[in-house]
């Protein structure tokens, strides 16, 4: 049965403290002068409720940057697939990042499914945090329809004046709220406030680019030869920041790490970037994406074209991280706008 709860802001400190006692609690915290990151917290004062997308998306908890997947013993010729995981409550996930996690779920459930990912995911409880307004000018969540949550959470909190309304989406979420023993069912007043806020959101969030969402796929499909890739080629530094910060980029490398005794060792999965030069290089020396422009095109295709073919879903959540992080100022919005221009 659908269930809404309320938490008054006065109780928020207590709420966070209790959450932290149950299991490891992870929430957005301030990092540097203008940036944020998901990190372990124990008290409400550590948490930044008002934050723009974190440097890395929460994917780092689902597929860690460095993840041991196999341990071996050479002399015994023993290979074991290993998972190191822990129970985590992930607090304060924006709606775009909820969508990002949903994309990863699709990929790693694709056969043969990646049990490492799937089991780890099961141990993470997700508490979403609804965005009432834009983070900044880089976001395109309106266009991608991710300013509202479309599932993907156990609990979703919406901040309203003096309180939070909490939507309980799963039994796990319900259980957690039970354990806290401090939230009450939402009253009619709270629900009215929630609806009012959602109505207002409808005005605030509009497609940031003048294109219909369903037109994005054909736009990119036909853009292989577009000139915009050439101008991006000139600007791009190939640093790989855009892919590492993207909530839906999941490419990885697997490295072998043997101990100094040359017997025990492990295979470690590490994030990799299609923007790095050797990414698509093969043994004869051929590089299938030697040009930075081509590599950027590939990145865009993997957001707006290929996954749509495969999963009927765009893999851009509109979080704006790629544009925010790019020191060469390659901007997703501008790229799409230029493509629209070019097509005319």
């Amino acid at each position: 049965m659908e269930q809404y709860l309320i938490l008054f802001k006065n109780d928020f400190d207590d709420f966070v403290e209790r959450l932290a006692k149950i299991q490891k609690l992870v929430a957005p915290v301030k990092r540097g002068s203008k940036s944020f990151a998901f990190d372990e917290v124990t008290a409400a004062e550590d948490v930044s409720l008002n934050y723009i997308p974190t440097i890395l998306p929460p994917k780092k908890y689902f597929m860690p940057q460095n993840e041991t997947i196999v341990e071996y013993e050479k002399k015994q010729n023993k290979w074991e697939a290993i998972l190191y995981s822990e129970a985590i409550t992930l607090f304060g996930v924006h709606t775009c990042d909820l969508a990002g996690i949903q994309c990863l779920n699709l990929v790693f459930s694709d056969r043969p499914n990646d049990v490492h990912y799937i089991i780890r995911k099961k141990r993470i409880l997700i508490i979403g945090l609804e965005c009432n307004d834009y983070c900044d000018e880089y976001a395109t969540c309106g266009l991608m329809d991710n300013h509202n949550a479309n599932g993907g959470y156990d609990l979703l909190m919406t901040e309203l004046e003096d309180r939070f309304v909490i939507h309980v989406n799963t039994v796990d979420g319900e259980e957690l709220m039970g354990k806290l023993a401090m939230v009450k069912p939402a009253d009619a007043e709270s629900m009215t406030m929630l609806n009012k806020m959602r109505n207002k959101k409808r005005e605030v969030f509009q497609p940031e680019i003048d294109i219909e969402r369903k037109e994005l796929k054909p736009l990119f499909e036909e853009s292989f030869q577009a000139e915009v890739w050439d101008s991006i080629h000139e600007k791009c530094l190939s640093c790989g920041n855009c892919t590492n910060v993207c909530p839906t980029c999941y490419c990885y490398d697997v490295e072998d790490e043997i101990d100094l005794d040359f017997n025990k060792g492990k295979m470690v999965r590490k994030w990799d970037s299609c923007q790095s030069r050797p990414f698509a290089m093969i043994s004869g020396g051929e590089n299938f994406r030697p040009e930075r422009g081509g590599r950027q095109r590939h990145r865009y295709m993997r957001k707006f074209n290929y996954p749509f073919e495969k999963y009927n879903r765009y893999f851009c959540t509109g979080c704006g991280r790629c544009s925010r992080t790019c020191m060469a100022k390659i901007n997703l919005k501008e790229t799409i706008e230029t493509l629209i221009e070019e097509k005319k």
Partner: protein
Amino acid sequence: MKRKTVAFFDFTCCEGCQLQVANFGEELLDILAAIDVVMFREVMSEKSDEYDVAIIEGSITTPHDVERIKEIRETATTVIALGSCASIGGINGMKNSFKLEDVQSYVYGEDGKNYFETIPTMAVHQVVDVDYFVHGCPIYPPEFVKILKYALQGLPYTVKDEAVCVECKLNENECMYEKGLTCLGPITKAGCNSWCINYGNICYGCRGMVKETTKNASIDVIKKYDIPMDWIMGKFDMYNKATESEEKK
């Protein structure tokens, strides 16, 4: 596996990279169990003219260095360039931006050049073949151990051709460009785990540049800042002057 005999040699450098090795703490004993160190002048008096693996620290800056490195190459089956000075010329390469007589007389007076021979700074591979490169000023200990393991197994190892930014992002540092500062992370080879940025400083490019030349794009980015152009160029040259011509190839 038979333990390989290993000798350390230093050329023109600060000896910090050898010291990084000496600084491993008790882990040094694990390393010493895997190899047989026959020469390590900084901490040992033993000497040997026979060794399988020669670990070379420092750049080649005198005619005598050239002779010595050639002899070492002939004896060793494996040569490892340790640290920026050896692997890319490093800090010593800044000298190459000046006329040799000028630096000699500036430091040692007009007669300087008569006492102290010097030639343009070279990385080790610019004189003899090098099998493994351990970049960094100083070397990043985990990377050294990693490469050593490949060397001891007799397997080739290529430093991944990607930028320090990659590691910097994975460590979730706030970007220097976000703070209004310039940083050489985007064009510098990764492998140090973005050491400097993790500690709040910028990347100085000590590991050499990634293969793909994006220096121009990078100058475009940096030009927006209010700093003299020759300082921008100086940034690139601090470590990479000696090997800059290779980058053009």
